[in-house]
């Protein structure tokens, strides 16, 4: 089975978010970059499990500048066979998707896996766009994935429950919690990662469909009002009359 896993980098979850240049750019100094958790914990680990059980090849793909190579090496350390970086700093989800689709179009992947969303831009868009550009089946937010005889069996959430669905390969999937468990790279993986090569591919020149105008930090909370355990009637009154939420 040939599997492509699209990976993005994201600021570590404890990052202090700050902006510069009149709030038009994210301050990247002192930011620790990680593999986007959904891409790493769920999409990549499940791809590796499927390969280990059934044979095949796992390629990771990132659209981004050369300094993304550190997070690509993390994917190698976890067990990815090959890695590709498309050399462009994407300005929106469509640029990312278009470049991924151009690269994947003649490679005959059985599965193309995405995370549910990037934790910095929270779009959840790239996977569905790639599926459309390649005219493939797309299942978003899958929480389980098994493959047998060219058919994928998946679980996904519905209101008050889950459903089990099937679709034929080839298939594009976005992964969320439940699909796999986080792995810690072992020493052998980390050593092997150092010597593997990352293939660099030129960008396809696609242009963005949306433009980032400005960031803004949310207003500070005006301060917490404290009540004691014996003032619950007063608290309920405040929630009703002041906050107007009950």
């Amino acid at each position, binding site marked *: 089975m040939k599997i492509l896993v699209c990976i993005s980098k994201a*600021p570590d*979850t404890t990052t202090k*978010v700050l*902006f510069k240049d009149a709030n038009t750019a994210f301050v990247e100094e002192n930011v620790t970059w990680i593999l986007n*958790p959904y891409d790493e914990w769920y999409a990549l680990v499940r791809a590796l499990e499927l390969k280990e059980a059934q044979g095949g090849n796992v390629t990771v793909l990132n659209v981004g500048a050369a300094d993304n190579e550190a997070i690509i090496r993390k994917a190698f350390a976890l067990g990815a066979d090959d890695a590709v970086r498309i050399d462009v700093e994407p300005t*929106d*989800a*469509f640029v990312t998707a278009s470049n991924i689709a151009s690269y994947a179009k003649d490679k005959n992947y059985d599965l193309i896996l995405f995370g549910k969303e990037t*934790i910095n*831009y*929270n*779009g*959840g*868009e*790239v996977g*569905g766009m790639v*599926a*459309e*550009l390649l005219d493939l*089946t*797309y*299942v*978003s*937010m899958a929480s389980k994935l098994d493959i047998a005889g060219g058919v994928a069996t998946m679980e*996904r*959430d*519905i209101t*008050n*429950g889950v*459903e*089990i*669905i099937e*679709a034929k390969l080839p298939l594009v999937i*976005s992964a969320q*919690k*439940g699909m796999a468990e986080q792995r810690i790279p072992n020493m052998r993986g980390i050593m092997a990662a150092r010597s593997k090569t990352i293939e660099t591919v030129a960008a396809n020149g696609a242009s963005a*469909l*949306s*433009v980032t*105008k*400005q*960031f*803004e*930090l*949310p207003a500070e*909370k005006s301060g*917490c*009002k*404290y*009540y*004691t355990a014996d003032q*619950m*009637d007063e*608290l*309920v009154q405040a*929630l*009703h009359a002041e*906050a107007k*939420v*009950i």
Partner: protein
Amino acid sequence: MSVLIYTESAAGKIKKASIEAVFYGSKIAAQLNTQVVVLNIGDASNDELATLGNAGASKVLKYAALTTLDSKAQSKIAGAAIEQEQATVIIFTNDLVAKAIAPRLSARYSAGMVTNVTTYPVINGASFVVRKPVFSGKAFVDYELSSDKKIIVISPNSFPVEKSGNVATVSDLSYTLAPSDVTITLKEVKKDNTDHIPLPEAELVVSGGRGLKGPENWGIVEDLAKALGAATACSRPVSDIGWRPHHEHVGQTGIAVKPNLYIAAGISGAIQHLAGVNQSKTIVVINTDKEAPFFKAADYGIVGDVFEVLPKLTAAVAKFKANAN
């Protein structure tokens, strides 16, 4: 030209979030001086669909329900409506359906899209500027769309609906799906046999963390939720150790909620937890540790023991509800 709102119905009903989307679309149409067309895939009756006029729809196109969410099939049906109505603005509410379909339409029509939008667009000729939370709620960003078609996926529970008293006309969308457009087969549905309120739609949420000490103690969380008519949620370690089901896990790696009221009991307020709850309108925190970081994000705080505070709060809510009736 038109503004098209994609909606679904199940068990004869249209979701509240869909009605918000219709109202949102009607506000844009008023500015653009165009029609408001709603596409509804599902089983709602014509009478039920006509009530969307109340939220600003002039015309509703209906299409029979499919057996399950199928991004390709549904995006084809939506595409038929978009082309027939020459829609230039397409509105979704941010749910599982939009996540599956909206990106396909964006790529198909080179339509700029933004998800989880919390503002009405600022319209300037062909340019729309909309705002959404990014960095898991730690910031906002304004995006500009200037493509011919635009897709806006709105955040639920963000746009109060004003009723107009109008009635919409309802007709069938005629479109035949090609067999190759149906790509997903439903094998089994596993409903949890409770009738609890689904978290993503909840207006009130009571959430518990490790401070509850064990799954056997969740009765006091559920009692408060029941008194309020709230959904229940939990922190990640609580679902990881199996005290509560995974679908209750909120935060950066779980569900992001946006209720009017979020009550956090025995949760420390780690940055990854806050990422999923910081869009809540009002936050109440109950924690024995007055230094717990959650108090910095709270509107109301009780420094105290959940085992004492929760039952007292439940009693106060019950008393308030009894007096209100």
